Structure formats: C-alpha cells, structure tokens
C-alpha cells in the first residue's frame, strides 16, 4: 500500500515558467515532509522540508506548500531552469515514530531550454 504517492511520473516545463510537482499521502500521522532531487547516477540530495505546523516554506526559487486537510503537498519551482531537470521525490515521516522516511515514486522533471 503506497502511503506517499506522486501520481505524475513525468513533467515537462519551459525554461522560465513555473514547475509544480505534486505529492499525496494517506497517513494522517505524517508530520514532517521533505523533497529530494536526484540526478542520474547520483544519490538524492535534500531540497526543502516542511513541518505540519506550517503550510508554506520557501527557499529561493523553491516553495513547498502543505494542505493537511487534503493530505497534499506541492513543490513549486519558479523560475524553472534547465539544471532543475531531475527526478524529484517527496518523503514523509512521523516524528513521534521511527526515523524512516516513506518515499513517493518520483516525478521526472524536464525543463526545456
């Protein structure tokens, strides 16, 4: 049973436009969420996080939004750049539980020059 879902396997966006990557979760006990970015043949690197006490967190071009009632989070990249082309994974954690994150299946973003 997939507790964290990324329903779009791929997304193409024109350079300079906004990229929106979506993530849905089913477990209401999740209270900490992260986004990771992964290039081919490399390990994932941390991008941005958000705690359930917030509904938005911003870091430069990256903003994560959390809608707890809908059990939905999204990552906005503005403006998108060709170097943003990668696979993006969302991950969720219950901070009162173990340290193991549950990952989504990933969305491959392609930013077209």
């Amino acid at each position, binding site marked *: 049973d997939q507790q964290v879902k*990324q329903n779009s*396997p791929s997304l193409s966006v024109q350079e300079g436009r906004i990229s929106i990557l979506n993530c849905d979760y089913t477990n209401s006990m999740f209270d*900490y969420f*992260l986004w*990771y970015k*992964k290039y081919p*043949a*490399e*390990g*994932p*690197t*941390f991008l941005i*996080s958000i*705690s359930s006490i917030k509904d938005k967190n911003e870091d430069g071009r990256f903003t994560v939004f959390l809608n707890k009632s809908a059990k939905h989070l999204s990552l906005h990249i503005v403006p998108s750049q060709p170097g943003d082309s990668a696979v993006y*994974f969302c*991950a969720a*954690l219950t*901070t009162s539980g*173990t*340290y*193991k*994150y549950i*990952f*989504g*299946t*990933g969305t491959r973003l392609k930013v077209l020059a």
Partner: protein
Amino acid sequence: DVKVTQSSRYLVKRTGEKVFLECVQDMDHENMFWYRQDPGLGLRLIYFSYDVKMKEKGDIPEGYSVSREKKERFSLILESASTNQTSMYLCASTRGQGYGYTFGSGTRLTVV
C-alpha cells in the same frame, strides 16, 4: 563536507554470487538505511539500523541481510544474487528525527 560513501558505483555480478555493498558515513550518525530505487517504484526501504549491531527489516528485506559492526559502516549483503535484484542501491544516514537523510552516490548493481 559530510559524506556518505558507497564503495562501488557500478557492479556486475553473476546469479547466485554473494554480493557485499559497503557504506561508510563520517557524520557520527546512529541511523543508517539501505534503499533500492527502481523505475516507477521510487525508493523502497530494505533494512535500517539505529545503532551498532542493531538492525530492522524494512519493506522489502527478502533476499538481503545487513551488518553493522561499527557505527560508521553499514553493509548490505545479497546472499545469493538474482536478476530481480538488479537495481540502484542507495545508502543513507541521518542524525535523527526532524533531520533529512544524507545519501551516498548509489551503487548500480547488475546481476546477470
């Protein structure tokens, strides 16, 4: 710069071989993890460890075992490699709750 180092970037092994994947972190993290990444399936947890000599099964432990004899080293063992274990293997560590993982660069294992 903190690091998680996986000893091999690419490996090719034969069916039935015993395979060792090594992971070392220099951050004094207690928590270490092994994931595999497959297209369309995301990252799936194989095993994790909260402390030396301690291990717990993740979501897909079948066909794998682990060893954590020292805090900095977490090894994944494929007892008898099979073709369905061809995958990208990722090691990660974390300081604890509320902190993200630091991942290694991954090992692309091909079993022929």
